[in-house]
């Protein structure tokens, strides 16, 4: 090997050790900044408001975060492959009403022969979500339509299908068994939080330890190189939309179960909070870079900030402003680090 290559790597290794303090600090902040922000805000709120750290409030925050968190985890898969899924909010409502119509005791809204067992209703909702995602996935991966456009179409179409299916009316009076996933608890932990935790662990394992996870990162990082390396790029792209749609369906059913009825207007603008959580969590919209742990922290940060502002009695309009600032600040930090590199 040539001497200069040796030197390059030696120099690079030395640079790693000897980096000046500013770069090091910036790196650290960019890597752990969001976690740090979350901790600082929690500490601040804990000092400022005694109620914040109560078990009841913590569970409340987690429960409020769980629906956005589940959507954001699905969105992470999509964004990692350079895509976007704008349709999740509409799929929340669509899967919600279809599933609820199988589990309602209201004779006007029920599907003939119902109410059906809760598990069947849940399976139906999940299937609706995955099917919507599959349509997105096929349009994006087979017909090369930009994800933004394909899922924008689904955003509109799924909302329309929801209204058609439910006749524009909510689906009320869900069976107690069905409502368990929204209102029940496991050892004192609300079911939405339990489901969110399971979804997170599963996603973390899939992205970190399976071949599919490797494919997602490769396809997002460089689809051409992934193709040459024998990775089925189309199938990987299709699958991430199916995952996102399925999780949107799951979130829609939890939402319906929590409130006791499935609304046709449920989930409006939910895609924005989900994208926000992913972006705040450090996943790059350019694809190939990001972690589901980041998304978890991003979703929690949004949840804690909303909760904190609620506790302080701040008008909810401010919450939107602050969320906007958070999104942009998180990406600016990331960019600052990239420039330094």
């Amino acid at each position, binding site marked *: *090997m040539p001497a200069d290559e*040796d030197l390059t790597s030696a120099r690079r290794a*030395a640079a790693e050790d000897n980096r000046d303090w500013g770069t090091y600090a910036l790196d650290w902040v960019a890597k752990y900044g969001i976690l740090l922000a979350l901790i600082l805000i929690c500490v601040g709120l804990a000092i400022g408001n005694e109620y914040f750290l109560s078990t009841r409030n913590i569970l409340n925050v987690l429960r409020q975060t769980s629906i956005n968190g589940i959507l954001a985890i699905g969105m992470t898969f999509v964004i990692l492959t350079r895509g976007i899924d704008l349709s999740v909010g509409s799929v929340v409502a669509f899967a919600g009403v279809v599933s609820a119509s199988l589990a309602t005791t209201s004779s006007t809204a029920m599907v003939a022969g119902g109410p059906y067992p809760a598990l069947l209703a849940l399976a139906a909702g999940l299937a609706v979500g995955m099917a919507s995602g599959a349509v997105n996935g096929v349009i994006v991966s087979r017909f090369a339509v930009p994800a933004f456009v394909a899922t924008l179409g689904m955003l509109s179409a799924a909302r329309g299908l929801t209204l058609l299916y439910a006749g524009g009316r909510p689906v009320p009076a869900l069976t107690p068994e069905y409502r368990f996933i929204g209102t029940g608890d496991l050892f004192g932990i609300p079911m939405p939080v339990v489901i969110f935790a399971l979804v997170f662990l599963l996603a973390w394992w899939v992205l970190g*330890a399976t071949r599919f996870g490797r494919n997602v*990162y490769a396809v997002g*990082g460089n689809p051409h190189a992934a193709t*040459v390396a*024998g990775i089925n790029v189309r199938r990987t792209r299709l699958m991430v939309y199916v995952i996102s749609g399925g999780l949107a369906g799951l979130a829609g059913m939890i939402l319906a179960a929590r409130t006791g009825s499935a609304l046709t207007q449920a989930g409006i603008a939910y895609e924005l909070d989900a994208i926000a959580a992913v972006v705040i969590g450090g996943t790059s919209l350019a694809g190939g870079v990001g972690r589901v742990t980041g998304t978890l922290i991003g979703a929690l940060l949004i949840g804690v900030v909303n909760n904190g502002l609620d506790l302080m009695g701040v008008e909810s309009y401010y919450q939107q402003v602050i969320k906007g600032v958070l999104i942009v600040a998180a990406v600016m930090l990331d960019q600052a680090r990239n420039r330094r590199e």
Partner: protein
Amino acid sequence: MAADLLEVEGLTKSFGGIAALKDGRFRLQAGQVKALCGGNGAGKSTFLSIVMGIQPRDGGVIRRAGRPVTYRSPREARADGISIIEQELSPVPAMSVAENIYLGREPTAGFGRIDFRKMNRDAQALLDSLHFDIDPRTLMMDLTVGKLQLVEIARALSHDSEIIIMDEPTSALGEAEADQLFEAIATLKARGKGIIYVTHRLSEVFEVADSYTVFRDGAFVGEGAIADITRDDLIQMIVGRPLTEEFIKENVPGDEIALELRGINSVKGVRGIDLTAHRGEILAVFGLMGSGRTELFERIFGLVRDQGGEIRIGGAATAIRSPGQAIGKGLALVTEDRKGTGLVLTASVRDNICMARLKKLGLGPMMNIRAEAKASRRMIDLFNIKTGNDRDPVSSLSGGNQQKVVLGRWFLTEPAILLLDEPTRGVDVGAKREIYRIMSDFAVQGGTVIMISSETDEVIGMADRALVMRDGRIAGELARPELSAKRLVSLAA
């Protein structure tokens, strides 16, 4: 005596306490084409970025026509008569050639309206003066990569600078286009311009430059006239130790047929290709840009649809419809464009190495992380890849090491047939030699190498046999004893 166009002394630059440039020295006179030579990490890029005002320097002097100067931006450097032709292209695809050349300084005709007629006329005159056969009204997206590069060159020259820096200008050019560039360089030289020519391709140094400066490990090592140095001495100066041979070739081709193509067609006019490659053989495919050589590889590897023809591997007819199937048949493809289609730059060294072997490095859908780490380590050791930690992003490696990561990825799949598309493009002399060693060893062990190359030296140095492609067909075949630059080029053109 007139002052030099550019004179640089004792230029230094450190990043985080590490010296990237310890002693940058350079002199350029009017009418001179000076090659700036050095391996990866020699400090050439740092030197150029300081001269162009992209980065501030730590110390040293830059004198432009005798005046000490400090540019704070490339714009200032350009205003003072220095322009650069970048290695990376930056076209606006939906705009015309003329619009790209005059981007940001379009001629206007009252009320800020762009004077398209004057712009097209000026562009035409500029392209004509360089003998570039390009219509200024063509959209950039309709041009080949080679022509795009020529437009980029024309754009840099349109500033009418006194000093023109060319950083690997031929990396995307075919032989014919490269010749056009060399002609343009001769014209500029005759007009008294000074040219700084940076390239890894030594044959070009001897073709276009009249003098050279060598950097090694961030410092000036020497300079002189091209006429006074031999190729071997120059290599030695760049690498810093004597090189015995530039090419390594120890394989002897066998009789057993590894790959046979009969009447293979592909997109973009590749028609009726017949090819036979044996075990233990290094077969070169020589041809100009656009001759269909890359398209041929894409067809063999299942990257484009079957357009007719037969592929036989080890005697058995096979259908290859996807890269996955190709890999399953023992094929491996190192593409020409390392960053575009080779590496996933956002991923780690390890992930890039394991990428084509994921199915064998796990159990069902699950990855075996320990097996991945072991496989990656094995390839890093085998190919002597310089990386601190294999979880580091592959983008932190030098060009030569990146290329070895791609090779490592494919060797992990235990291939029988290696398809290499310009395997030594953009890597320095030392790393080139390592890649030749890898090719030779692979063939010695009974593997088959099919290598696309547009460098005649490389074909002559490495190939047992060469097929020359022209306009999508095989224009001729040369056995090793018949190989010569003249024959190759005349068959290709």
